[in-house]
């Protein structure tokens, strides 16, 4: 399979701060490639270098066979960019925004209006085409921003956090569009915090942490490689009982996390833990509402790779909360 993006030893310093540390990876033609990482890990810096908004300190980026340092023009013509903030012109109408972008990308005159109409209809904005964007909701601006990024039918689309803050309908419409564009052959580079979204959409994901690529593979392969974070999930009745400490004390449980009305018990050996959970429920005269074993989620893998032990974030938060309630401060 051909590579659309090839990155070699890409490095970026801001003064003395090393933001991206000699990373190398490839993005294959036609795939949805997820780029995950915690805040400050180097995601946005990397994406800005790939989209020519920022010059690398060192390293090489080749997109569609063109070295970005010397030959960015043909790449820019076939590239679309949807940044995290919907960067639309609020003083222009939806139609005006699309026409401006189409002219900027030199879409031929006869195709401009037809393509703009198609996109406005696809995104449910046709009726609002003559309304100034300052009157648009966040979701409408997001949809318009994406329409502007694809009006020239790019072969490569960069999406930075496309769905956070959107209503479920808008988010689903955007996910459907990503799948449709991939089916039509577009390569998509998706930068996101939303691990579940990456799991749903991406053929492969890279996890960046402290400026370095910590892992890169398909979501399923990453989960398989992280078998350590297996768990048993149990819901007990009557609800309101809080057996967290007792469950945590069961042999083999490394961490326990409350998930709504359920408890998730992380363990290296779920099959050994299951009968112990049942024995515990029986001894305490609790009814087992549901009981299941779970493999690691992509979020578990992400937390493990980025150095946050599964469950610890929630535990620390809970502990701090408890300390706060007690007024205990060191």
């Amino acid at each position, binding site marked *: 399979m051909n590579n659309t993006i090839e990155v070699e030893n890409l490095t970026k310093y801001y003064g003395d701060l090393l933001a991206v540390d000699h990373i190398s990876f490839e993005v294959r033609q036609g795939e949805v490639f997820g780029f995950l990482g915690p805040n400050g890990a180097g995601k946005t810096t990397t994406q800005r270098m790939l989209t020519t908004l920022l010059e690398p300190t060192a390293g090489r980026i080749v997109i569609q066979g063109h070295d970005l340092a010397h030959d960015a023009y043909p790449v820019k013509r076939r590239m679309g960019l949807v940044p995290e903030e919907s960067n639309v012109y609020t*003083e222009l109408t939806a139609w005006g925004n699309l026409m401006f972008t189409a002219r900027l990308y030199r879409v031929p005159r006869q195709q401009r209006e037809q393509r703009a109409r198609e996109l406005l209809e696809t995104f449910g904005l046709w009726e609002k085409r003559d309304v100034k964007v300052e009157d648009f909701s966040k979701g409408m601006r997001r949809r318009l921003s994406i329409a502007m990024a694809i009006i020239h*039918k790019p072969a490569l689309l960069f999406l930075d956090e496309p769905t956070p803050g959107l209503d479920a309908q808008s988010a689903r419409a955007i996910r459907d569009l990503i799948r449709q564009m991939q089916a039509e052959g577009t390569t998509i580079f998706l930068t996101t915090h939303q691990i579940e979204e990456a799991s749903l959409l991406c053929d492969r994901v890279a996890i960046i942490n402290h400026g370095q690529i910590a892992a890169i593979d398909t979501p399923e392969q990453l989960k398989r490689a992280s078998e350590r974070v297996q768990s048993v999930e149990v819901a007990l009745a009557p609800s309101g009982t809080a057996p967290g400490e007792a469950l945590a004390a069961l042999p083999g449980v490394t961490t326990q996390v409350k998930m709504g009305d359920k408890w998730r018990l992380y363990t290296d050996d779920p099959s050994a833990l299951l009968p112990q959970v049942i024995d515990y429920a029986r001894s305490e005269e609790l009814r087992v509402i549901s009981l299941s074993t779970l493999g690691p989620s992509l979020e578990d893998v992400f937390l493990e790779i980025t150095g946050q032990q599964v469950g610890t974030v929630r535990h620390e938060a809970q502990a701090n909360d408890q300390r706060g309630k007690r007024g205990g401060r060191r």
Partner: protein
Amino acid sequence: MKSTTTMNGGWIARLQDEIAQAWTVAVKDVKVYYLTPPMIMFGLVLPFFLFFSFSVKREIGVEVGMARLLALTTFFTASSAGPVIIPLERRMGTYDRLLAAPMSLLTLLLGKTLVGAFFATAVSMVPLGVGVLVLGVTVANVAMLLIGLVLASLAFAAFGLIFASIPTHSVGSIMMPSTLVRWPLMFISGIFVPLEEMAPWARALAHLSPLTYVQDLMNHAVLGAGALNPWLDLALLPLLLVIFLMPAAWLHHRSRVLGY
């Protein structure tokens, strides 16, 4: 998916594309920013305020006043466009849209230069219209006046882009250093004290200000007389455009390297 963009080959087609893109950027900026408060304040009100501050009760003729006001409006309006528009675009994230578009940085800056020149030429039509239609001023050389206004506006718009390279989202953060440079250039120019009346050292200093040549050109165009050769004034303006665009392009490129 096949791209719908025109895949023009050759440098002539590329040049055509770049010119069209610069024009597209300029037209969009005119539509979006013509009534923004900073543009009205720094581009429209300020030159008139300065003119009346330094000219009232000084017994100057209407023709002299009009020539002076034309030079001031081109200088302040054109050089305010970039420093107003670019930080606003950075704040809205739309500047990234322009930087990622398939055009060179110089094309983008040319587009911004065009919009500054448009605003300055449009604003200068106000004193020109009032002077000619209401006060009955006769213009000695109309062609020289119009060409001079356009060229001066282009040069000063490029001058403003140097300040617009300061990596900030705040118009005020650019206007402060911009004012620190533009006001001294105004005071050392021959705009309030004619070159002929200056001491030799002050006249030498005046030649360092680009406004001196525009003021002299306006004097030639409106009054029919000036202190310098009008052809020198005219020839200097395109040169100033290039001289100002070069550091502007370098500084904007530098911002992209440093990551602002």
